[in-house]
């Protein structure tokens, strides 16, 4: 909403953004990064979702309208931007404990101790990239701060990464800065958390866990890079709880999920990165935001035919309000991610199915009645205002013909296209459990970036021994 106001203001149209009371602080901090530090905001008392029409009407008439008039006609105060210290300024000297207190008191840490980002540590990290420290990767909302190779290194040091993770960290910052991903949505209320999927030779080379316990902390590479992601969102993009990160619950950062390349190779299935056009010889990160998901326990069956129905059921059962990212709120941006254990993947592959075949089968079979889809859009939630049916969306040209029809019981797919159901292979190779991630649509869209190694990568790695 503020983003639209910023666009309007940028072409000289006065705006007044309506904002529920609990979000005023967020509005004020968010507007900074939009280049309009004082975007005028009008308060709607309380939250509209729990107000009767009369109550809402009274609130708007008694409070909001006056503020809108003031916003559109009054003076807007002049803004003075603060200066940050220069990137290589030494801002503090002290013991480990004192450094950590400084970082925690000032909101620069996630609450755990950080590794003090000394110049020496930072230069070790910079030694693992061909970029200069001041190379600009992009600009990150909401704080509109520059993502630079230097501040990637700083946050990497803090997170407990090793210097040789630097190429991966840079790729992650590039992905975060890609408009396709939509980092500016990272503070929205569903509080979805990013998952980083890693593919390519670096999985083995840098000792990532890609087998049993793939989603649990315990391996330095997976854990510290996952932590880096959150620290970077905090310290560079500028997402802070109780300010502009309004995740109602949220959850802790996820560790990096590495795929089981050997299993993929045996089945001749492409990795997630290869699906996105990355060469097999390259490593790449794929980021995407997931609201939640579930483990699919004890998939039972010795063939694709026997295993797939349970997986399709997981897709339809756990995908609920997120359907608005398929139709309603956004069009065709829902990208659920199914992680198959090598055991199940290879059982399915042994039936002669390619990854595309599996996606096609799930697309055709993971379907729900139209009434249920519509219930999530306009019944139980008000996420898609206007009370339009799926059929209306087809008629408006905002949904594929597949969704047309007036029979409320007709079965409709949960995604536009078979390949929108993403599939990866990881986890305990000796257990028949799978995992489904439910996706946050356009508000954290899958974005893949290749990891670019420095020219003398191998020499530098050897020099570490």
């Amino acid at each position, binding site marked *: 909403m503020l983003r639209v106001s910023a666009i309007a203001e940028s072409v000289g149209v006065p705006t007044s953004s309506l904002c529920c009371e609990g979000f005023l*602080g967020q509005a004020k901090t968010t507007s900074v990064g939009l280049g309009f530090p004082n975007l005028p905001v009008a308060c709607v008392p309380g939250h509209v979702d729990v107000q009767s029409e009369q109550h809402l009407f009274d609130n708007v008439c008694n409070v909001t309208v006056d503020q809108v008039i003031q916003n559109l006609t009054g003076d807007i105060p002049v803004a003075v931007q603060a200066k940050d210290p220069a990137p290589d300024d030494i801002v503090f000297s002290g013991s480990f*404990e004192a450094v950590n207190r400084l970082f925690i008191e000032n909101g620069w840490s996630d609450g755990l101790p950080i590794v003090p980002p000394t110049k020496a540590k930072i230069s070790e990290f910079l030694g693992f990239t061909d970029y200069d420290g001041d190379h600009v990767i992009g600009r990150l909302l909401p704080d509109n701060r520059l993502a630079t190779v230097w501040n990637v290194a700083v946050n990497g040091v803090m997170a407990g990464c090793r210097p040789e993770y630097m190429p991966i960290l840079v790729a992650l910052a590039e992905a975060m800065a890609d408009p396709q991903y939509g980092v500016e949505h990272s503070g929205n209320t569903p509080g979805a958390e990013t998952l980083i999927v890693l593919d390519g030779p670096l999985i083995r080379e840098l000792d990532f866990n890609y087998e049993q316990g793939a989603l649990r902390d315990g391996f330095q590479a997976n854990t510290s890079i996952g932590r880096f992601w959150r620290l970077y969102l905090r310290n560079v993009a500028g997402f802070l709880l109780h300010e502009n990160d309004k995740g109602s619950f949220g959850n802790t950062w996820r560790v990096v999920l590495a795929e089981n390349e050997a299993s993929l190779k045996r089945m001749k299935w492409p990795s997630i990165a290869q699906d996105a056009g990355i060469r097999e010889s390259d490593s790449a990160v794929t980021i995407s935001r997931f609201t939640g998901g579930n483990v699919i326990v004890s998939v039972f069956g010795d063939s694709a035919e026997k295993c797939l129905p349970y997986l399709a059921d997981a897709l339809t059962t756990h995908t609920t309000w997120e359907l608005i990212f398929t139709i309603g709120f956004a069009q065709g941006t829902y990208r659920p991610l199914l992680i198959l254990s090598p055991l199940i993947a290879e059982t399915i592959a042994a039936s002669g199915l390619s990854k595309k075949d599996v996606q096609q089968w799930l697309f055709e079979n993971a379907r729900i009645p139209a009434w249920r889809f519509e219930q999530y859009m306009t019944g139980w939630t008000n996420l898609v205002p206007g009370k339009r049916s799926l059929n209306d969306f087809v008629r408006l040209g905002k949904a594929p013909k597949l969704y047309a029809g007036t029979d409320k019981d007709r079965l409709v797919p949960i995604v536009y296209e078979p390949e929108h159901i993403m599939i990866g292979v990881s986890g305990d190779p000796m257990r028949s459990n799978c995992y489904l991630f439910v996706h946050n649509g356009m508000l954290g869209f899958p974005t893949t970036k290749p990891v670019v190694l420095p020219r003398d990568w191998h020499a530098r790695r050897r020099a570490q021994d």
Partner: protein
Amino acid sequence: MQDSQGMLWIVIPAGQQANGGWIDDTLRERAREQGLTAQAPLTGEFPRQRVEPVAGPDAEARARDLFTRRGWTDGLPVVAPTAARVKNMIRFSDRKATDVLGEVDPLRGLATIEKLAANAVMAGCRPEYFPVVLAAVEAVLDPAFNMNGVQTTDENVAPMIIVNGPIARELNINSSFGALGPGWQANATIGRALRLIMLNLGGGRPGTVSFAGIGQPGRYTLCIAENEEMSPWPPLHTEAGLAAETNAVTITRVESTINVTGGVEEIASVMGTAASAFQIMWSGRPTIIIAPATASRLAQQGMSKDDVRRWLFDNGQWPAVQWHKSWFKSQLVKEGNWPEWVERAALGGAIPATEKPEDIIIVVAGGDVPIAQQVYAPSWGFPPARITREISLPDGWPELIANEAN
């Protein structure tokens, strides 16, 4: 307060705007333009973060010195707002550190609970005073207070904090002998906290942003409790619709506190002079502090507070002939530019000190002395203001107070 390594962790008390900017940048520019940098040479020179570590053998003294040179004081030494002291202050409110009460004009620093607490610590407040400070801040952030005007005007106006309810006794806020000072920690520091907030969050720095011609000692602190025990009338906050047993703060705007030894006759005599000129110009609301002895004599004569107001309204009028002769009227604000009620009254020969009798704010305070002293505090500016806010206490208040006393 220093940690095991001799480090003092202080919360930066300066105003940060909603856009992330710091008001000190503007203050530095204004000071530079006006050649006033000597008074606070380190204005704007501090790390732009929440908490700053200060080291050294006497970190408290160093912090005090830094604060003075950065212009974060009223000229008196301040208590270093350490993270622990600030946190303890916030425990005595029902708010979170990040809650925002509003923006303090004119430079619009955000009044976060933490920044308010830091300034209250600096002022020397005990933590149990914090709910009173917060109620006072809520009152001055009411648009009717016109913080922008109060801070930037060339008049010498200051907010007066009047506390009512049982909390005044609980916190030992003086309402009796010497209530306007000095000597009582609550009166001294609650009013001072509000001033530091206006300086450090609003940027009302004299000469650079605040252009009060001469200022007044009431700009250091101006806080009293009403002497409810000795008042024959209903307490002040009940006039705002609150029950007598609730705790409340009333904010008025005063240009000065003029001592008037005598009775209502003498008050009326002072009211009907140029002392009321600015107030008349803006239809303002003066504060009149009536001594307990005088109040009880008036009550014995059967006069209610409204009767006293009416009497003062009728008898405290500025003769029109004086008005015509005044510099204010003859040189500055000519006929036709005064409120309609003023010019109409002038035709009748005398101008009341207020537009309506209800505009006169009456508070009973002071010691029980036979030759009583009253205070006439003429008001300033637009819009006419008198703002009452209930004081909100956190859950578990009695225990908090009891533990703090130990």
